[in-house]
């Protein structure tokens, strides 16, 4: 009957338009949709854990719409970044996140904005979920003046510590943020992300040791997208069970393409940290559609078939969409409307960023020191002096 109603409404709407009447008609009132539904999600693999995240989870219609919109925004943002990069409007490094949206959205759904998060260079998704508007982001990607001289890899906002270029270096930093949380007794925690490539860095093991020793409230998350640049996990790691690599730290392996799995696992992990038990490790099994960066086509070390298979069978946005539609939580039109809105917002942001003027030379040397009187900075020769303001 729902379908019939929408058919009738479409016809009526078409007629109304033909007759020049501006009529707003909605065949389905929101009361027709299910407000929430229970979903069965994949079990997590456990390491040194007696309990597990829930496998029967509830998602409300509002939550679903919000996750959908956020993931779709991230997807469109990355595709727009791809386009702008090819037009040479964005320069430098650009590491795209499309395919991995469920990770960023699922994690943020389970923590608070007062918690902290740090990741490596594939950071556009997290910059957005942590509160960076995509206006700001696209401007930053372009190297605009708004906030930041680091471009794609170095975007910051409150309780989001970047955006870090040195592989693995963000992991001790994240544990340090967690130390500050424990020191200040504010019941906050730090989510500290790294990839399957970084997982072999020595400093990460040093960090595991100190985090466990001092019971720091840090959730270590390995986003395993199967490839560290062009090297598959089998060629890089003697053990690809990244969730076990913390040895004395309990671990979870999670389906990173399912936003609800990620959300539940993160909830579980957050509870673990906040109860004073110390760190916990999560491995999110995910996938990136683009190559490592914009200079990598991404097909020399993996097949197009593999990429296509993931897209058709495990795409996070499609998975969520199917769930919502089959449980009568939203209509096709409604989701399409969201798509259209998102597309327009991203277009506008790109337009704004493209026309935003480049920063003037005076900006070049600012922000070298914090809370410092202005200093002179030597330019490219002894007679050229630039000014640096804090």
């Amino acid at each position: 009957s729902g379908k019939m109603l929408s058919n009738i409404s479409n016809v009526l709407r078409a007629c109304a338009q033909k007759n020049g009447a501006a009529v707003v008609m909605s065949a389905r009132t929101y009361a027709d949709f299910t407000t929430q539904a229970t979903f069965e999600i994949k079990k997590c693999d456990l390491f040194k854990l007696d309990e597990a995240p829930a496998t029967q989870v509830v998602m409300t219609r509002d939550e679903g719409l919000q996750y959908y919109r956020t993931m779709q925004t991230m997807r469109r943002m990355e595709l727009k970044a791809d386009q702008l990069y090819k037009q040479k409007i964005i320069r430098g490094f650009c590491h795209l996140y499309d395919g991995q949206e469920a990770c960023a959205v699922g994690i943020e759904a389970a923590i608070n904005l007062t918690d902290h998060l740090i990741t490596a260079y594939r950071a556009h998704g997290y910059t957005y979920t942590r509160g960076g508007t995509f206006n700001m982001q696209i401007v930053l990607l372009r190297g605009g003046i708004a906030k930041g001289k680091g471009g794609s890899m170095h975007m910051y906002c409150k309780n989001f510590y970047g955006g870090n270029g040195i592989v693995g270096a963000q992991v001790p930093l994240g544990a340090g943020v967690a130390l500050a949380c424990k020191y200040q007794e504010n019941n906050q925690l730090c989510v500290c992300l790294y990839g399957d490539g970084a997982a072999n860095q020595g400093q990460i093991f040093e960090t595991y040791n100190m985090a466990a020793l001092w019971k720091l409230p840090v959730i270590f998350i390995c986003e395993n997208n199967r490839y560290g640049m062009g090297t598959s996990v089998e060629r890089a790691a003697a053990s690809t069970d990244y969730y076990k690599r913390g040895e004395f730290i309990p671990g979870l392996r999670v389906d990173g393409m399912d936003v609800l799995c990620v959300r539940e696992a993160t909830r579980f992990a957050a509870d673990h940290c906040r109860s004073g038990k110390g760190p916990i490790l999560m491995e999110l099994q995910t996938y990136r559609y683009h190559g490592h960066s914009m200079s990598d086509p991404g097909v020399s070390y993996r097949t197009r078939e593999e990429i296509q298979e993931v897209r058709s069978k495990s795409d996070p946005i499609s998975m969520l969409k199917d769930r919502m539609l089959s449980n009568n939580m939203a209509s096709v039109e409604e989701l399409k409307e969201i798509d259209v809105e998102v597309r327009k917002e991203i277009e506008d942001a790109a337009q704004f960023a493209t026309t935003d003027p480049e920063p003037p030379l005076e900006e070049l040397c600012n922000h070298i020191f914090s809370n410092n009187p202005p200093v002179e900075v030597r330019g490219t020769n002894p007679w050229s002096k630039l000014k640096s303001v804090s």
Partner: protein
Amino acid sequence: QNAVSALRRREFHRSVTVRDALNQAMDEELERDERVFLMGEEVAQYDGAYKVSRGLWKKYGDKRVIDTPISEMGFAGIAVGAAMAGLRPICEFMTFNFSMQAIDQVINSAAKTYYMSAGLQPVPIVFRGPNGASAGVAAQHSQCFAAWYAHCPGLKVVSPWNSEDAKGLLKSAIRDDNPVVFLENELMYGVPFEMSEESQSKDFTIPIGKAKIERQGNHVTVVSHSRYVGHCLDAAAVLAKEGIECEVINLRTIRPMDVESIETSVMKTNHLVTVEGGWPQFGVGAEICARIMEGEWHVSSQTSCSTQRLQSVQNPMQKFKFCMCLREVPD
């Protein structure tokens, strides 16, 4: 009346070793600001590998004085992360030789972040520890890192000589909102110096970026930092007997360097000798010479200036024997 006031002044002067001056600085800053904490190998229960943090763990406990495992890269990164999240860590390297294991965190995570974030993310951290030559500790434990760290924008690099320097500069470094590399010298730890009453106050700080003229003179400018300032003053005393008056400048800060003080002095003396413990190539002395040659002085002065660098022998061991080298400087 002068004698009486001099006597009164003398009463308040105390002989304090560099070690105790550093200890006082940290004690006072730990007390003053609860965000300040110390972490490093053996800083707590061992009282510090060189006893610089003696008594601090007993007074402030596990939360404020933290023993770390032997994981420089890891704990330096943790210290930087803590600084980003609102604390004010003092990260000790047992010697700066071991800081090489963590140098990525010092440069890429600490020094560059404020700039990359366009002012959103300050990193108020102090990295401190003994630097440079010690007594016969061989090549791997004797390197001077002044030039390495001073090369990088975003860092402040400080190198105290005496107790007053040590205390005043360490307090300034801790109160500074930027990453500061604080280069001590192990051989100076046990050396006592008279400290004025003013320098014994809890609010005594020495500004970072300002050199000090330790000895006035008209014939030759001698610029140095850390332990070698003492050697320069000794040499100056010997030369004074021969009628050569050295102006000895204690740099105190390597970056940002107080080139103006050196220039002013060289305009007076027309002779410059730099003295340091590091290797000569691409070193602190090399930078001073380059800046003087390029600078105001060179343009305005009509006379020529001779410059010489004195530094450690260019072999891995960095043994430095200051043997009246000033004698060999041509007129």
